[in-house]
């Protein structure tokens, strides 16, 4: 099955709250995680997002588009990264989710894919 692992964590780095050494440790951990997933042959794609302050939102309002900065939801943890993996079942996916470096800082969500687009067609 195809699962998306969604990482939520506080955006400390953006506010300069972490020193350089801590940032490097985090990057190394993410690097290791992605490499482990890749070496196991389960990694389909990985994205680590810029802080939510870089988000721009498009909304259709009364037949028009409204573009604005944000959203800046008042939650401690924000969506910070996405790993798409292929795993035999939920237990295997949870096993990988537990290894995500950010699990120390915030919740990791595991969700199966419904359908995905590949080679020009939707496929289950």
């Amino acid at each position: 099955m195809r699962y998306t692992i969604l990482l939520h964590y506080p955006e400390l780095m953006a506010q300069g709250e972490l020193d350089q050494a801590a940032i490097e440790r985090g990057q190394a951990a993410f690097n290791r995680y992605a490499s482990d997933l890749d070496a196991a042959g389960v990694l389909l794609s990985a994205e680590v997002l810029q802080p939510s302050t870089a988000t721009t939102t498009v909304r259709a309002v009364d037949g028009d588009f409204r573009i604005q900065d944000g959203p800046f939801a008042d939650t401690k943890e924000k969506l910070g990264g996405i790993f798409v993996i292929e795993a035999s079942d939920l237990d295997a996916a949870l096993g990988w989710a537990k290894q995500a470096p950010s699990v120390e800082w915030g919740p990791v969500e595991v969700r199966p894919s419904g359908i995905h687009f590949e080679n020009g067609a939707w496929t289950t």
Partner: protein
Amino acid sequence: MDDLNSPDCTPHSEVRTAAEQAARTSYGRLLALLAASTRDILLAEDALADAFEQAMRSWPVSGIPANPEGWLLSVARNRQRDVLRSAARRTSDPLEAGETVPAPDLSSIDPDAIPDKRLELLFACAHPAIAADIRTPLMLHTVFGFEARAIAEAFRIPPATMAQRLVRAKRRIRATGIPFALPTRADMPERLGFVLEAIYGTYTIDWESLPREASLASESLFLAVTVAALRETEPESWGLAALIALSSARAPARFVEGGFVPFGEQDPSLWDVGLIREGEAYLRRAHSLGQPLGRFQLEAAIQSVHCDRLRTGTTDRDALLRLYRALVAVAPTEGAKAALAAVESGN
């Protein structure tokens, strides 16, 4: 397939009895097997219902098969495969599950060779990704074959609510990809706890509202012992097996002439000595592992004190007090507190 009975006509009542017998003894086994390959409990239930229906139609004519369980499994598997194939045609992409279901061969079915996947089904029902309060109902429903209505009554919630929650849980197993498998060694301790809780749930609910209590007690015991054997060094598993065995041992004396007989007034000569011996053996096994006493071991030890009345003619109230105090310390449930208060006031 060879039939035991004359192919001309088997009385309908006999067919019904045979089908009901098969349903009672093998529902959970058949459902677990059918659902294991697809993780789709709803589909497996439909396939099994179709198979029972077909049995009622064809057995009166063809006779009751020598191996009713194998017959039902084959017919249900065919049905399941047909549904998956037509679903695959509709979506143009073949479904993985449809390909893995092998074509059944009616002549080669050996009932003893039908594997038991109930334990795997149990771990799926008690998975942490399933809401804790629906795990025991789901287990009763799938492993033991209870109707949602009966379970709703036992849990004292409206039948429609229970039915809806059961369907939601079954859909969730399929949608999230919960495996029908034994957990890994690392996951086992936590998962085992959930399974023990769910089996314990079948023991604590109000059995008066459910039919066929006796057969369920032995099934619960079977599952508890199987789980305990799976991880032999886990004392609480043996504690739960002991608890169910010792408690079921007194079942024959619990209802006399339709009336409930409380502990102290039960006639010990009605108790099942074999089950008491079995329970005591499990309890010794749990204690021999030498770890702090958990809730199930303590409850089993309390049962053991009560069962000892058969041997000594009296109940050791001091032992009961000690055990109940320990139980309230480990698991301060309302039931345990009330029981402790009752023992204390009786002194």
